């Protein structure tokens, strides 16, 4: 198998290495020195650059650095360090000379990463014409509760919205600058240590009713040094096809030259669910003139055909004996060691983590199962839990002053189990939100002789049965890459990176014979599904950068590169239905079936970039990238992506007015284009093999499947952004960025008219065509300020805001040149002139309790009708947040040994689909508006409009989604070194108390406008549907350094 890709790769590598083979070497000079703070404290990890060349290095623990092979002549050295002001020094370097150059940096209240990763290597931020957001992951993990990588990303960068999953181990969706694609993924791509990382959403073969893992959350945030977010094509051009939705660039931690530093940490905490769950309502009554008990609705009572006796109110979620919501637990312990010398540096780490969600077997179920002698296994008792172990070894070596080699290798082993919960009849949500307004609502019904058991307010069966079904995923994942950075000349830097991200995934769905819910006639006969997948992402990246000082004020930087990404997914699935007693594997199933699936996509790209730097304050960059991709149609060969950006530090110009309050003003603008590739088989015309029973015999057959499109090309998005960065009052920083992103050739799943009779199952009903156009415009703002900074106390505040405007510009035309009709679904439409995935409905215009009985009813006679509904289906709202804002105040106390940080997040400009309440009204007959005479008119109207009026409008269930969430609260106390040394034998120590998801302010009527039953599937229209709430975390953490 491996040989299939190794051979061409070897050829590719050989050719590529020839390109960068050395011509000659010449003796050159060195610059060495030390970087300290103004108080003399050595500063490690300061970046030292030789301006106008490819040379750069990083200071060690003692603050020392050495730049070797420095060209002779006048040179300028620049030093950058987070939290300090940049400093430059010039010197003339003689042949074979060693020049000493020390720097004492002035502390800056502005905490910006000054060096950022780009597709062509690390670059000073000020040279880039686009905005790049950075997240200091080390800081985040030490001070916050982050269960996974998406927790790190959430609410930290304007323009990036993250909607995390609710179940432990489940993933969420990430959007950067809105949705661009109607039918392709709107998720960004991920690069880790220079290679493409598998970032599949919906990554399992488990049917959980929604909760799904995403592969980015396999990563251990503790191993990550830094995350940079490249927001759109204006910056992502050189990342090539697939980067149109943004790129998240992850850099893992590295060793630094100096003494060995051990760091260990441990945290423990609890999870609680404070969600305000709805009650179930039932109107108990009788028909006029009859004594027989019956259940009615408000409308029936108002019509006089039922007499209300009482309103019964109950929910298992509010009954301590019946609720499955308990206390969850989280523990984490890890250790890492970093150190080395100039020749070899290392970072080694290991961590174990486990988390048990709040869901637990209710008390009444525990008693039942004990009484009936039913075993309570761990997964029956705590059905949602995660156990994860990760290790990492990163080695950097510099065998010569011209060559750096590095190897990054991480291993993750995890075991997660999920509850069948939301969009599943078998699931917990379907039962717990669907019961009656009373506890004594009958028994779980069986037709197989199983003793009946009380429903206890649940709908059709109780959690003990649901929790008997195991949904488990085991993952072993290795991400490893090696890179070489070779600088044969001071003006030339060559880099090569080869890496693979390999995931072995095993999904197990087990329901033993005689167990599980009585969903249908065969469910409790048992089944076992064993699905094993291998996911491989291979990256080979090669680049060469040359710099040239054309004159004293002009520096040219030329980069050429090529990149090859090879993605492979294969899965085997074995299913066995109707298991033998006690059996847990498919082997014993009397109804076996097997399946396999394969996905391959390969991208080969090459690029050239030219940057012109003038006076070290004006930088103009232009680039072109060309990609070929295996998913393109046979009649489409390659795509070209251009890029142009300008960055100008205007305040450095001599003619710029000297303003006492202004420290720096940088203007920037960037234009670029990128794409999203089609699905791997979208271009192909295919049949598929099937088995059918024909005249009594199982027979192989062939069915027409996809009609394909040999003209298929990538969806292409061009973006222009402009903005400025300003630093002022020596304590504040502000950034403002406007963007306009146009997607053309948008891949639309063109509906094949059903009368054509194409496809097989759900496949082949559409064909991907490059038809549409989508526009996103918006802006992002960030203000960060050290409000005051005194020796004992300090206060800093960061505020971000973003706004997005999304519009479908065209849907394309049919064969006759007529505009295609809108794509209409039950809740949304893709209609030109409106946002993608917007909600549409016949609007509820108002209501009037004409008869004054407190109950709203619908009547076809306008004179009697009390709920007024618009005739036409119209656009109602965005289905995802348009506006986001965060407030991040940090307070330092007690000589700055105690730091208190809070994070508040606002999302608004959208409505959220309360589908839980919809199904409670439409099918469960237990919702407030339908069954509670004291319900507000608004709630009554939405039930009546949907259930009784001919419109069946869902308008009332599209509810205002704006909210403010107290996302995080962290208190960190830095233990005095003397205390740490004396009592802990540590040279640094801190203790941190952190909480996550503390409070929610919203007018949304459902549980939470941020819970999405299928967040891990990265839905374009997320909604709450029989979904359990978001847990609140309380965690105590101890960090020790040795």
């Amino acid at each position, binding site marked *: 198998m491996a040989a299939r890709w190794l051979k061409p*790769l070897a050829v590719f590598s050989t050719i590529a290495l020839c390109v960068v083979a050395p011509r000659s070497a010449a003796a050159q000079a060195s610059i060495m020195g030390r970087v300290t703070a103004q108080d003399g404290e050595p500063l490690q990890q300061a970046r030292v650059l030789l301006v106008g060349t490819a040379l750069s290095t990083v200071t060690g623990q003692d603050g020392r650095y050495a730049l070797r092979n420095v060209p002779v002549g006048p040179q300028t050295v620049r030093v950058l360090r987070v939290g300090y002001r940049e400093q430059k020094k010039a010197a003339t370097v003689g042949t074979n000379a060693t020049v000493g150059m020390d720097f004492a940096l002035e502390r800056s209240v502005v905490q910006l990463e000054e060096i950022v990763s780009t597709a062509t290597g690390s670059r000073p931020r000020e040279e880039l014409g686009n905005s790049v957001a950075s997240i200091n992951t080390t800081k985040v993990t030490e001070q916050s509760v982050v269960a996974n990588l998406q927790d790190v990303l959430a609410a930290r960068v304007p323009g990036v919205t993250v909607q995390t999953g609710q179940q432990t181990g489940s993933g969420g969706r990430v959007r950067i600058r809105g949705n661009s694609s109607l039918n392709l993924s709107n998720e960004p791509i991920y690069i880790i240590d220079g290679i493409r990382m598998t970032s599949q959403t919906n990554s399992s073969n488990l049917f959980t009713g929604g909760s799904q893992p995403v592969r980015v959350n396999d990563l251990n945030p503790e191993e990550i040094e830094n995350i940079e977010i490249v927001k759109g094509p204006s910056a992502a051009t050189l990342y090539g096809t697939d980067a149109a939705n943004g790129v998240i660039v992850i850099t893992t931690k590295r060793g630094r030259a100096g003494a060995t530093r051990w760091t260990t940490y441990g945290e423990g905490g609890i999870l609680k669910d404070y969600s305000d769950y709805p009650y179930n309502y039932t109107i108990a009554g009788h028909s006029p003139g009859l004594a027989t008990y019956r259940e009615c609705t408000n409308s029936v009572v108002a019509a006089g055909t039922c007499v209300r006796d009482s309103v019964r109110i109950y929910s298992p979620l509010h009954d301590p004996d019946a609720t499955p919501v308990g206390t969850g637990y989280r523990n984490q312990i890890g250790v890492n060691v970093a150190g080395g010398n100039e020749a070899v540096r290392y970072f080694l780490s290991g961590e174990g983590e486990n988390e048990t969600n709040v869901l637990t077997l209710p008390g009444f179920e525990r008693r039942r199962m004990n009484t009936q002698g039913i075993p309570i296994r761990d997964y029956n008792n705590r059905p949602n839990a995660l156990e994860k172990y990760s290790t990492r070894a990163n080695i950097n070596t510099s065998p010569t002053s011209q060559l750096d080699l590095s190897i990054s290798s991480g291993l993750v082993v995890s075991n997660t189990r999920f509850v069948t919960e939301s969009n599943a009849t078998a699931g917990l949500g379907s039962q717990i939100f669907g019961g009656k307004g009373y506890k004594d609502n009958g028994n779980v019904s069986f037709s197989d002789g199983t003793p009946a058991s009380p429903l206890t307010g649940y709908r059709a069966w109780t959690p003990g049965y649901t929790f008997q079904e195991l949904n488990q995923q085991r993952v072993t994942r290795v991400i490893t890459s090696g890179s070489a950075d070779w600088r044969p000349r001071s003006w030339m830097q060559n880099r090569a990176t080869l890496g693979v991200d390999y995931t072995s995934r095993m999904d197990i769905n087990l329901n033993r014979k005689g167990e599980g819910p009585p969903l249908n006639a065969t469910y409790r006969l048992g089944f076992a599904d064993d699905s094993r997948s291998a996911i491989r992402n291979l990256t080979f990246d090669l680049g*060469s950068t040359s710099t040239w000082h054309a004159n004293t004020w002009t520096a040219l930087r030329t980069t*050429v590169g090529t990149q090859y990404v090879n993605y492979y997914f294969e899965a085997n699935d074995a299913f066995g239905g109707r298991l033998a007693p006690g059996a847990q594997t498919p082997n014993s199933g009397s109804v076996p079936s097997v399946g396999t699936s394969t996905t391959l996509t390969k991208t080969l790209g090459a690029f050239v970039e030219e940057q012109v730097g003038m006076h070290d304050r004006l930088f103009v960059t232009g680039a072109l990238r060309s990609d070929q991709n*295996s998913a393109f149609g046979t009649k489409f060969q390659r795509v070209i992506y251009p890029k142009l950006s300008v960055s100008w530090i205007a305040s450095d110009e001599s003619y710029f007015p000297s303003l006492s309050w202004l420290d720096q003003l940088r203007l920037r603008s960037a234009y670029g284009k990128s794409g999203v590739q089609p699905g791997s088989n979208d271009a192909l015309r295919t049949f598929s093999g099937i088995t059918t029973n024909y005249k009594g015999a199982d027979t192989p057959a062939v069915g027409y499947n996809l009609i394909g499109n040999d003209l298929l090309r990538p969806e292409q998005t061009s973006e222009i952004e402009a903005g400025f960065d300003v630093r002022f009052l020596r304590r504040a920083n502000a950034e403002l960025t406007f963007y306009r992103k146009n997607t053309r050739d948008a891949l639309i799943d063109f509906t094949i008219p059903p*009368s*054509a009779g194409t496809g097989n199952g759900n496949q082949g009903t559409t064909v991907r065509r490059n038809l549409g156009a989508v526009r996103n415009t918006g802006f992002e703002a960030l203000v960060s300020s050290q409000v005051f900074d005194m020796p004992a106390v300090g206060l800093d505040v960061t505020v971000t805001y973003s706004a997005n405007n999304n519009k479908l510009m065209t849907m394309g035309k049919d064969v006759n040149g007529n505009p*295609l009709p809108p794509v209409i679904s039950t809740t949304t439409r893709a209609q030109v002139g409106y946002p993608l995935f917007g909600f549409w409905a016949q609007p509820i215009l108002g209501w009037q309790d004409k008869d004054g009985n407190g109950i709203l009813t619908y009547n076809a006679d306008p004179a009697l009708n009390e709920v007024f509904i618009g005739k036409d289906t119209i656009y109602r709202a965005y289905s995802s947040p348009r506006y986001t804002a965060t407030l991040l105040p940090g307070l330092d106390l007690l000589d700055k040994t105690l730091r208190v940080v809070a994070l508040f997040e606002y999302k608004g400009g959208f409505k959220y689909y309360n589908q839980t309440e919809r199904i409670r009204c439409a099918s469960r007959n237990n919702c407030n508006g339908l069954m509670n005479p004291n319900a507000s008119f608004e709630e009554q109207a939405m039930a009546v409009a949907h259930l009784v009026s001919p419109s069946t409008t869902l308008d009332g269930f599209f509810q205002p989604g704006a909210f403010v969430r107290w996302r995080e609260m962290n208190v960190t106390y830095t233990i005095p070194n003397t205390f740490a040394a004396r009592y802990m034998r540590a040279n640094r120590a801190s203790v941190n108390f952190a909480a996550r998801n503390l409070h929610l302010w919203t007018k949304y009527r459902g549980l939470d406008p941020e819970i999405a039953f299928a967040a891990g599937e990265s839905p374009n229209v997320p909604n709450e549907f029989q979904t359990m709430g978001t847990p609140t975390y309380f965690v105590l953490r101890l960090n020790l350094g040795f």
Partner: protein
Amino acid sequence: MRNRYSEVGRVLAVAGIIAAAAFVPGCDVSDRLLKATDPDPVNPNDVQSADGAEGVRIGAMDRWKRTTGGPYGNGSESTWMFGGLLVDEWGTGSTFVQNDQVDKRATPADNGTVTTAFRALHRVRTSVNQAIPLMVKWRQNDAALNTKIAELLLARAYAEMQLASDFCNGIPLSDASALDGTIIEGDPMTVDQVFTKSIATADSGIGLAIATDTATVNVLNALKVIKSRALLGLNQVAAAGALAATVPTTFVYNHTFSTNAGTNSIWSIARSNRRYLVGDSIEGNARNILVANAIPFFSAQDNRLPAKYTIAIVGGKPDTTKSQDGLTLSRTTDLYDETTSIPVASGIDARLIEAEAALAAGNVNGANGLMPILNALRGTARSLGTVTTSPAALPALADPGTTTLRQNLLFREWAFWTFSRGQRLGIMRRLVRYYGRASTSVYPEGPHYRGGVYGTDLQLPIPADELYNSKSKGCTDRNA
């Protein structure tokens, strides 16, 4: 400086040449690096053989089965189920709003399950149209070639007939059978035109089914029944009766099932998953909501349709199994088990068609008249799914005496003999269209147990997705 610049230039030039070489179309390196062969799909070239043609033919048969009682997945019910939901055969016990819409006779054009059912019938046409030329090209040595092609035509005739029976006017018959991906959009056709098309297709099949072996005769009889039903759709009752009269009562053309290759969906969706309720004239659990015009399929406890509540007695308290929605009392039928074969066309169908023709001709009690035919069916044990009818439980019927009552009797008998086999909706439409009945006296009417009242749908709509056919206008006429 000049030397350095030259060296940069050299390096860039070499890199450029290599990169260009890698990207030249047809370059071996580029092609090999980008080659991606997915083993999952079957290449269209792979069906260009005798085995391939046979595979496509069996595939077409599979497509056909999925439009009757074939394998079911969520939202992929055939019109046998959804048509039955629209009329009085089935009620919904599921939580799916699509099922509610159809059951309430208020189906919007974007109902996804209707779209799937509509597409499934067209898939039969497309796969048949692909299979026939392949069979002709590659299986000339197949002794059963004509019979196999006749059977393919049977499938297509059935699909066309069922489309016309269940959907409104405006049905396009597009053509996507070309293996180059070309789609020829079809013009909207009236149901009469589609019935006519079905008759022509059936005639083509009949012309080929000339051998006398059992398999060919079986196909021939099925073609006759399907053609007769299409003739009824055109109100050519006499012709239909005459053709049906040549089909023996014992004839049956089955679709078959197995646990490994697809189960009987009437069992899986209605009985196993409890998403459908056997229809009744009283609904709403204990609320006793009257469904006007509905045949009480459940309450009748007819020998041809064994139906029951599942009731467990726990502590002396009866507890009825609920449907999938957890609320509605489940009413299931044991008519079909998991792998019970299901007749697509049968001699019983032929007799009923013959009976209608007799009634239309005024032959009520004479030889081969309405009542003798109906009573002959009842008077002999007949196999219906898992059931063998009992003549004792189906005593002879008395002539009700008037034309209207005779019609009622005929179609009630028809309903029980063909329960959930895709015939009831067509009959209701014909009652309105040709028998002069008001739809309000034929279709379910009144309050619906899910809230609101029954709507006015008389058939299933052309799906909104069909508007992607530039010639489609959706339903051109919603009359019966």
